[in-house]
């Protein structure tokens, strides 16, 4: 019916092409930049182009000039040229707003893939001029972290940078930019951070299922309340503790209680159930690698939240089961770097 593609399609094609070109251009540019954790902004790495507001201001100037010429308004000339002079001065001021700043990476927080992780940056203004409305952002993104920097001062910033994939990756290309003072010029300085960032596997969308049977048979058992628990039989290892209100009568060790000022309860010892919980890829019951890692990741986090010990077996490497923050970080790192 309609031989020519609809407008929307053509637009989509156009924008795809544009995005691809932009992508290539950025990649080429990023490749030219030397990665560094400490960047001094100077004449060589600060770029400036007129913005669309400059176009409008230029148009205003043209109209003002035409009016002055046509009405032979000498005061109009004066006024127009003062505005033009201010605009040129604004070019210099916009460039000077970035030039001379120093940025330094303080810390890069690890992050789960698909999330934004905090990058801690120190910005320092060594000059005697205040810097107004300087922005730090991921290049190509609209949202910007704006900050003012008084003369000879520093500020600690926290920028959340997206982490698309798992592993130890360099950060996305960052950019310091400004439009101050008149918005007529866009000034920016690209920044490739040298230190890589650790990206853990993505967290699964739904809550992870309970631990598999193989790892811990008791994990599947519904948590029995003490009231319904069968009385410990003689063969089991018992431990004793002071009576607590609510302990069933048959749990009280009357013999021992007789020798003590208060009642003593019998109870099963805290289960050494996590001692053996070492998770492996096969436990997840999933086939896709990233999904497996995701689930393991979720289990490790759950174990940490419940203060349980957990270990990991990935390929030939084994991490014995332990509890604590260090263990969690160790395991997450292993998951992040596994391939």
């Amino acid at each position, binding site marked *: 019916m309609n031989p020519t593609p609809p407008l929307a399609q053509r637009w989509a094609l156009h924008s795809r092409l544009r995005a691809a070109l932009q992508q290539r251009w950025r990649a080429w540019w990023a490749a030219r930049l030397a990665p560094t954790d400490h960047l001094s902004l100077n004449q060589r790495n600060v770029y400036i182009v007129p913005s669309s507001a400059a176009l409008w201001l230029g148009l205003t100037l043209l109209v003002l000039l035409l*009016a002055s010429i*046509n*009405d032979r*308004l000498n005061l109009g000339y*004066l006024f127009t040229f003062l505005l033009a002079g201010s605009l040129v*001065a604004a070019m210099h001021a916009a460039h000077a707003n970035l030039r001379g700043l120093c940025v330094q990476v303080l810390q890069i927080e690890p992050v789960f893939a698909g999330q934004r992780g905090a990058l801690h940056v120190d910005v320092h203004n060594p000059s005697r001029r205040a810097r107004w409305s300087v922005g730090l952002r991921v290049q190509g993104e609209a949202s910007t972290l704006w900050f003012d920097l008084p003369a000879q001062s520093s500020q600690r910033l926290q920028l959340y940078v997206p982490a698309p994939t798992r592993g130890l990756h360099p950060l996305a290309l960052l950019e310091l930019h400004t439009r101050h003072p*008149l918005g007529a010029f866009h000034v920016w300085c690209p920044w490739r951070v040298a230190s890589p960032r650790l990206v853990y596997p993505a967290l699964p969308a739904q809550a992870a299922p309970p631990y598999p049977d193989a790892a811990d048979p008791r994990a599947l058992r519904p948590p029995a309340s003490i009231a319904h628990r069968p009385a410990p039989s003689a063969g089991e290892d018992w431990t004793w503790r002071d009576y607590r209100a609510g302990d069933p009568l048959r749990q009280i060790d009357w013999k021992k209680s007789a020798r003590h000022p208060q009642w003593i309860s019998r109870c099963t010892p805290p289960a050494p159930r996590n001692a053996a919980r070492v998770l492996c890829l096969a436990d997840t019951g999933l086939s896709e690698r990233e999904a497996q890692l995701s689930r393991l990741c979720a289990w490790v986090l759950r174990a940490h939240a419940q203060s349980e010990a957990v270990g990991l077996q990935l390929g030939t490497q084994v991490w014995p089961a332990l509890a604590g923050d260090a263990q969690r970080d160790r395991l997450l790192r292993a998951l992040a770097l596994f391939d």
Partner: protein
Amino acid sequence: MNDIWARLPRSERDTLAMLGVLLWVLAPHALHGPLWAAAASLGLLAWRAALAVGQKPLPARWVRLGVLACFVGLSAWQFRSLFGREVGSTLLVLLLALKTLELRARRDALVVFMLGFFLLLSAFMRSQSLGLAAWALVGLLALLSLLVQAHRFTQQARLIDSVRTALRLAAWGTPLMAALFVFFPRVGPLWSLPAPGPGGRSGLSADMTVGDVAHLALSDATALRVRFAGAEPAPAALYFRGPVLEITDGRHWRAAPPTGASQRPRPDRPPAQPAVQWLAPAQAYAALDYELTLEPSGLAELLAPEGSSAPQGSELGPLWLADSGAWRLAQAPSALIRYRASWQARAHLAPSAQATPEKIRRAQRLNLALPANAHPRTRAWVAAIAHAATPPADARAWVQRLLSELRQGGYRYTLDPGLWPGDPADTFWFDARAGFCEHIASAFVVALRAAGVAARVVTGYQGGERNPLDGAWVVRQADAHAWAEVWLDDAQVWLRVDPTGAVAPARLGERLRLRPPPNPVVHALLGDYAPAWGARARLWADAIQGRWNDWVLGWDQRQQFDLLRHLGVNQPDWRNLSLALAAALGLALGLWGALAYALSTLRPFNRRDHWLRLWARTLAHWQHQGLTLGPAPTPRSLARAIQAHGRWPPAQCAAWADWLLRLEAWRYAPAQVKPVQSLNTLAVELRALCHTAPHALLRHWFVKRS
């Protein structure tokens, strides 16, 4: 009030600031436009301010569109058109006020700024006075400040910082402005616009009804300024010639229509050759060169001193000597104009070779005509003189006779002659016996015509006031004057006769002019000191205004070329001007660069922390001595390192340690430094410690550089 301000979020505060600036920008326009437009724009701004203070949402789109339609309809009704300067200006004001109700994106703010800049400039089409320039400068800086503020994205952005930034931008932009202003080629209008009518401007007019100059004589507004080169003329000899009035109905006087329709098909085209000429005086008076700036008056006459040579000026356009003897332009200038000419006192106006006898006769007839039945008593009186025993023989005798009548007949000069319902000439000669120049001149001319002597009334300005501060003559509207011109048959020339001089000699030349009585309240408050003080202030204001006119408003192509000639260009033209513009821009930018470099690097401007400098010098000294220092040395660690090194005598080490610890304390424990020491003392001590010789200072400098 402060409380409300502090509680508002930043965006609302910025909006309120913008509304204040817009009020400033709109004010002069609102004063000139129709009243309803002023009220409407003020109301819109107030509405927006109320919305901002209450943090309420902006009105819906249909409300804004409705208001807009209302405004357009009202403007169309008021001006009977939607095109033209006045209606455009009114609509612009209304649109700007309406736009404030639609400030959502930054782009909307940009539109407001652009409209604001344009409104500032469009005010200059009405006037380019110094006061308006000051208003526009404040408006421009305020708009720039708001534009800067709109590009501050942090929450705590203070307005005062943005104002400072804008001021700095404007200061940096000034050299560029100066370069562009001086050398930007001035070209004529690109397309012609309907010239605004002379309405609303006071000054002389092309016709007069006797009594019309009364309110002019009270106006202190400047009519023109003259600056003579070399000698100064006598003020009594300065007659600035304006419209010549030849046709009268007894009360109303007007100029003769251009004669010889075949010769001059259109009144705004110059004739091939003027029909009149100014004769050089018989006695050799030195010609005085002068430069005259003329405020727009709605008249096409150039108001040159009588007897001037052809005026020269780049903005004048076609110019010719009209039959009336005044220099005429094709069109009444709408802005200040400036020209140069030379002038000789006591010149006579005579028909040139181009004037045919027939034409001269026609002019005579015209200047003899009196309306029938008018001035019966004057006619009777003149007839009585003519039939007396010794009647005046010729025109000169008639002039003398009437002047002596004016001198001896008890006539008075007054600014307050009252209303004359009857015949003006008869009232002057016989009833009132008082009046000012218009009454006197018109009655005088009527009497001469009744006697058969061709005469006419000339209007213009007489005299002027020399400003001792800048040597310029200022002629005010109060100097407006009317005098008579009499045709001498024997000499075939027009002779100027000023009958007012016969009545009130002080009116001419002397600075004794009738002034309105002082305001009683002001007089009571300021007493007798005020006049002297006020006169002095007026002199200053005049001098400043004169400079303003010369340097800013009068800067034209001719001045640009003159400047180029001064700079050594023999034949200035557009190309040279463009080159000069480029050079000046380059110079301005170079100046900029030099200044920026000086501010950032040179010692007196870039006052780095004095303490740090001292510390850096100390470190440089010890590095030169071969002491290896850790990564981040402190004064204390340096003292330890010196001691530990063991190469220096203990006394020297102790002196250094003492000094270093005091240096540290100065910075980090100032309360412990007793007595309070200045850094300069420490610096002097450092020099003593280092035994610094001049060559060592140089070495320090190199160490620091490297």
